[in-house]
């Protein structure tokens, strides 16, 4: 391997690593706040990328009917809950927010000249019909069992993953999708030629991470999420709704996932089931951070990207094996240094 190849591989590794880092942050966030090991995180990558590919080609976002259906389901579930609590005054808002709004959005999008819209507007439309799936999934699949054991939540998460992959094939078909880069071309930096898209990815990932940090440090919602992560019961006693916290972090994670898909789709072909492996690599990063530390998770994710990139050069058939075996020494280290084991009583 000469220096040029090494640089190219490093560039590749850092690019993918930045995506994994974003995903690993979302995973740590979701786990810390809701104790859900969010296996379907990767599906949002595929959904985001392929929805953008559809909109970019002038097609309606395929997931819009899913958003409408789940919206209706949420409206029904929330309405029933509101009636049971005797809070009928909330009904109009519940119905408008969950049922009317998605339908209106579908009607508007039908009459838009999607193909001729500016790229950023297309991105917004694609995100608009993928990100709502996050809170909808939380409300329907996780909120009813929010107090259950980590194990049960994990099995629910895997079931959601199954459903999303199955639906993904139906929505997007078996062919892969690719979208044009944000900016065509590239620039020569010293010995290396860097695509503009790479700069976009690394830059936006860094901005998003900084944005998340600001959000957690300074906004009231960010603080509420942190409080919930530290002590759920305590946060609830302080008037922070666990349901709201759950929905909020599922929204954030859906946004991060779908946007990561849009970032990566110009340089990699994304298939309906590609997201799973991408998400799992985010997990490897998150595990390196012990599912607790944000900076360690991000660093771990970049390491995963680099390892993947170099092993694809040396032993491309085994690159997945090498990446996933990375967690063994990490887990071993954590296992030998951890003394405390959670005592999770039956729920």
């Amino acid at each position, binding site marked *: 391997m000469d220096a040029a190849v090494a640089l190219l591989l490093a560039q590749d590794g850092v690019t993918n690593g930045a995506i994994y880092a974003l995903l690993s942050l979302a995973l740590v966030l979701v786990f810390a706040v809701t104790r859900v090991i969010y296996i379907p995180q990767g599906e949002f990558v595929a959904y985001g990328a392929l929805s953008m590919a559809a909109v970019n080609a002038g097609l309606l976002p395929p997931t819009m009917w899913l958003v409408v259906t789940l919206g209706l389901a949420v409206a029904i579930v929330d309405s029933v809950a509101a009636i049971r609590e005797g809070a009928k005054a909330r009904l109009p808002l519940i119905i408008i927010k969950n049922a009317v709004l998605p339908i209106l959005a579908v009607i508007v999008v039908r009459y838009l000249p999607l193909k001729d819209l500016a790229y950023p507007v297309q991105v917004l439309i694609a995100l608009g019909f993928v990100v709502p799936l996050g809170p909808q999934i939380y409300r329907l699949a996780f909120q009813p069992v929010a107090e259950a054991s980590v194990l049960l939540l994990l099995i629910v998460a895997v*079931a959601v993953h199954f*459903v999303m*992959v199955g639906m993904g094939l139906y929505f997007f078909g078996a062919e892969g999708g690719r979208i044009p880069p944000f900016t065509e071309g590239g620039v020569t930096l010293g010995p290396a030629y860097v695509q503009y898209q790479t700069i976009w990815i690394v830059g936006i990932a860094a901005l998003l991470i900084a944005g998340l940090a600001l959000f957690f440090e300074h906004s009231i919602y960010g603080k509420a999420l942190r409080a919930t992560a530290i002590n759920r019961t305590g946060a609830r006693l302080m008037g922070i709704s666990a349901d709201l916290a759950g929905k909020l972090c599922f929204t954030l994670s859906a946004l991060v996932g779908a946007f990561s898909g849009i970032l990566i789709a110009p340089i990699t072909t994304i298939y309906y089931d590609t997201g799973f492996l991408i998400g*799992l690599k985010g997990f490897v990063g998150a595990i390196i951070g012990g599912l607790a530390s944000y900076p360690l998770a991000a660093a771990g994710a970049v390491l995963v990207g680099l390892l993947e990139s170099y092993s694809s050069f040396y032993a491309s058939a*085994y690159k997945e*094996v090498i990446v*996933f*075996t990375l967690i063994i020494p990490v*887990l071993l280290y954590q*296992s030998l240094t951890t003394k405390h084991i959670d005592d999770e009583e039956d729920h």
Partner: protein
Amino acid sequence: MAALLTPNRILIAFLLGLAALPLFAAQFTVTIVNYIGLYALVALGLVLLTGIGGLTSFGQAAFVGLGAYATAYLTTRHGMSPWGTLIVGMVITTAVSLALGFITLRLSGHFLPLGTIAWGISLYFIFGNVQALGGHGGIDGIPPVELFGLELGSSRAFFYVIWVTLLAAIITTQNMLDSREGRAMRCLRAMTMTEAMGINTLRYRMVLFMIAAQFACVSGWLYAHLQRFVNPTPFSLGQGIEYLFMAVLGGASAVWGAVFGATAVSFLKEWLQDWLPKLLGATGNFEMVVFGLLTIIVLHRARDGMWPILMRFIPQRELTRTVEPALALPRRDVPECGSDVLQVLNVTKRFGGLVANNKMNLTVRAGEVMALIGPNGAGKSTLFNCISGVNPATEGEIRFMGQRIEHLGSRAIAKLGMSRSFQHVRLNQDMTVLENAAIGAHLRGRKNFVQSAWRLDREEERRLLWEAAHQLQRCGLGEHLFDTCGSLPLGKQRIVEIARALSSDPTLLLLDEPAAGLRHLEKRALADLLAKLRGEGMAILLVEHDMDFVMGLADRVLVMEFGEYLAEGLPQEIQTNPKVLEAYLGGMDE
């Protein structure tokens, strides 16, 4: 009608139908029932792991692959006998499962499933890429299994091999769960309590994971010799997840749930793959969507799966309602009355900056009841946790029977002869009162899970249960032996905790608020029991808020406030101590 449908008759009819099936059923049916048997064996392992142990694995398909590839490779390339390859496969499986378990099981429960995801993916890619294993093309020409000179080449003949294996696995699993080691496995979720009863929870989690992996490996071996061909596809992570769905949908809390789950999923999948694409006019993995949704609904609405719901329609088997008399278990030597059993010297416990116990001192002697009292939040339960090793002290010295124990874990301390109850009841609500009490006697038995699987533990088992029943009778719970703990009022559950502690034959008994929730007469009976135990030379340390109970029973009383020593003395001294009165009733100037 009800008399016709007894559990035994249903079982016999099921077995007869099963035995006759290959004789008349169509080839298609035989094939699918063969697969159900293979799936059920894997799901059975997951029932053990998930329903019993509270852990799970997504990598079971990889263990199936390990068993299948081990025999495929060794029989075709090296001409080994299938029986030999079975053993090789199981040895490799043991090694892999113990290694994975060693790495992940010390960590929180969710690291095992994450580790098994990585393992499942890695092994799948290895199968597909190693040329010696045939790559994605796989290995064909696997020889049939021979038994007593009989070649089991047809899938009808192999049907019996599969189902006899599965039924043997079910029976031995049921035997194992109904034993000393099985009870420990069923309590694994309540780790603090289980460790405090001297049970090595890590070992049992490893054992459960290993057994689940072995079942999967055997299923893979059977698969390879049924199919006579292997390729990587059926050993993917997706298949591993499907196995879990079978266990969860069928019912992870019962061994037959595995069979039911495997059956339901197999038939449903067959049917969905036929009908859904036609119905929807599109291709897709719709059965994935349906299974995913079904799993979510089951976990929301019926966490124990479909099997318990099915069982509601069948009259239940009468449980054995007697405990057979057996030889009493050997007992520990009782220390001389009045000798020091427990000494706590300058023990401090800090939680970060909070000092919960500050330089506490106390002594408990054989044949006396020492009471620890104090307002809420005084640090009494914290001190209990330091003494019993549940949450070790930060500083100071604790001696039990002359031995330093402040650095020992709760398991090691339990072995030395200390047993405790918990302030918040920690019982397995689904097990009977007798089984819960028998957990306390765990350390007094020796037989392991292999012996219990083959019923070689019955003599010891009778003695353990007899001991537990005896202690329950002493505590006045003789009429509740076969009730589930969840059906008892809280006060009585506390007494079950005492009986459990007594079943360990302790030298020192730690009781955390034993009288809370009891009615007047029950309190008096408890006081009588504790007085009797004291008379037998037991040392008793108790935390209690009921002053009448404490003052009538205790030989000495120690009062704590804000984590510190406040006073110590005879009950009548404490009752008139002005500092104690102020702590309890508030100062005059407040």
